[in-house]
């Protein structure tokens, strides 16, 4: 097994890990009880999964076809960048649109914070 084959195997391995992670995070998305917890599964682990897979693919092409694309790296970075943001936004939207949390939720700090802020503003007027 020469180096390039090694790298090829590594890349494939990365891809496989990514795929497995994707399935795991997908499991999360049905198993978790409410939207806030599900968004963890969807955005965090999923991002990792895609990151691994894409890296694997990138390495594969670099090793096998000696195709090195800066745009691809940029792309990976940006998927990495946008995915959490969208997760953040959608969760916030969910919160704002008053999607119920699961019953096992212990604490809702944001609610307190907003509550507090509104009270301050109310006083100010």
């Amino acid at each position, binding site marked *: 097994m020469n180096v390039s084959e090694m790298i090829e195997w590594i890349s494939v391995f990365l891809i496989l890990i990514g795929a497995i992670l994707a399935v795991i995070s997908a499991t999360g998305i049905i198993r978790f009880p409410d939207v806030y917890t599900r968004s963890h599964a969807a955005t965090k682990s999923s991002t990792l999964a895609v990151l691994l897979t894409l890296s694997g693919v990138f390495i594969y092409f670099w090793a096998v076809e000696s195709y090195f694309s800066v*745009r691809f790296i940029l792309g990976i970075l*940006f998927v990495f*960048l*946008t995915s959490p*943001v969208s997760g*953040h*936004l959608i969760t*916030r939207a969910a919160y*704002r649109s008053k999607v119920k949390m699961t019953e096992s939720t212990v604490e809702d700090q944001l609610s307190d914070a907003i509550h507090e802020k509104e009270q301050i503003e109310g006083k100010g007027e």
Partner: protein
Amino acid sequence: MKTNNVILHAVVKLVVFIILTLSVYLFLSGHHKPGGGFIGGLVLASAFVLLFIAFDIEAIRKAIPFDFKRVAALGAFISVGTGFGSLLFGENFLTQAFGYFDLPFFGTTELTTVTIFETGVALVVVGVVVTIILSIVEDV
């Protein structure tokens, strides 16, 4: 309720920049690789859409003071114009030409009239998509 969009704005500014760059790249590489006028235009348009979503119309208007209807019309004019252009050279309507030129710095470069045509296409796509979205949103 006021929202804090710092994260969104920060990311969008970066992403839009990337999309713009990539759209230009896609547009230019379209002749030999996937891409082209349509796709370039669409991607560019989606960058604008992203801007509109993340910011607000007034702000973007100030930054990019185009009348997108005219952009679209200009694009269409360019596209159709290349058709008429070929008449000037006594060719059939819409005949495209390409050639290889030795340019300083760039080396042997292929220059084609398709590029002009596709520029028009891209402009129309951008102009129209933005016009549509803006028209809908601005309707009161």
